[in-house]
């Protein structure tokens, strides 16, 4: 296969960066840089709104709820002796909790 470039051309290409002027940063570089830094700082303050945080909180809430439901279902039924056919009145409530103390005037 024939070479595309002559030795002279290869040499010329190799030396093509001679006298190169360094490229200058684009105009308003600092302003754009400050602009890029700003959203990063703002994002930090609103971490509560990040999807990962919201998902984690909702997952914990859901797990606690499921755990509570399972616990309630597994709890033993109330013994028969504790059940009563009497209508719920203030007197029965006071009697159940031993709150019917006599008056000091009696």
């Amino acid at each position, binding site marked *: 296969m024939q070479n595309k470039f002559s030795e002279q051309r290869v040499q010329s*290409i190799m030396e093509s*960066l001679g006298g*190169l002027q360094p*490229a200058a940063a684009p105009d308003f*570089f600092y302003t754009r840089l400050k602009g890029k*830094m700003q959203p990063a700082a703002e994002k930090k303050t609103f971490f509560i709104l990040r999807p990962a945080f919201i998902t984690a909180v909702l997952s914990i809430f859901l797990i606690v709820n499921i755990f509570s439901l399972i616990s309630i279902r597994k709890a033993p039924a109330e013994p028969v002796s504790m059940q009563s056919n009497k209508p719920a009145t203030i007197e029965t409530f006071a009697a159940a909790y031993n709150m019917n103390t006599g008056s000091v005037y009696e």
Partner: protein
Amino acid sequence: MTEQELLFGLRHGEESAFKELVTRFQDRVFNTALGLLQHHVEAEDIAQEVFIQVFRSIQNFKEESLLSTWIYRITVTKSLDHLRSKKRKKRFGFLSSLFGDNNMPVYEPEDFNHPGVLQEKKEDAAILFKVIDQLPENQRTAFVLNKVEELSYREIAAILNTTESAVDSLLQRAKQNLRKKLNEFPP
């Protein structure tokens, strides 16, 4: 402002010090990134990331090297990371065009023209940059730092954390590879 005053200001979060740092180094950082990435927009983006990194990690700068060396090192690292990520994206271009990156396809770069190249050498320089793009990372970095940023062997050795003789060897191999690729051009 001396380097010590600049560092003191940066460590105390003074905006004037940060502005001075950017003014002092923006051209060097941009030119290095441009030489390595061969893309104006990407080079500006990486240059911005370099200064953000400097701002965030200035407390970790131990002054074991010059501030300029440290900044050059960050620039080289970020530019090479960007190139690797670009290569990965190109490799999985089909998938990324389906699922990510705003469904933007990965385009083949056009011929790169460095703005500092002399008018009569523009065509040759564009060919040279195309072959530089095919060099291994370390040879490419040494060549760009030497030819585009015009750093001395000592400065390049400090940036790449190696010896001057190793830099000389890297540059010799880079030149040999470039000649070889030019003789096979277009690949």
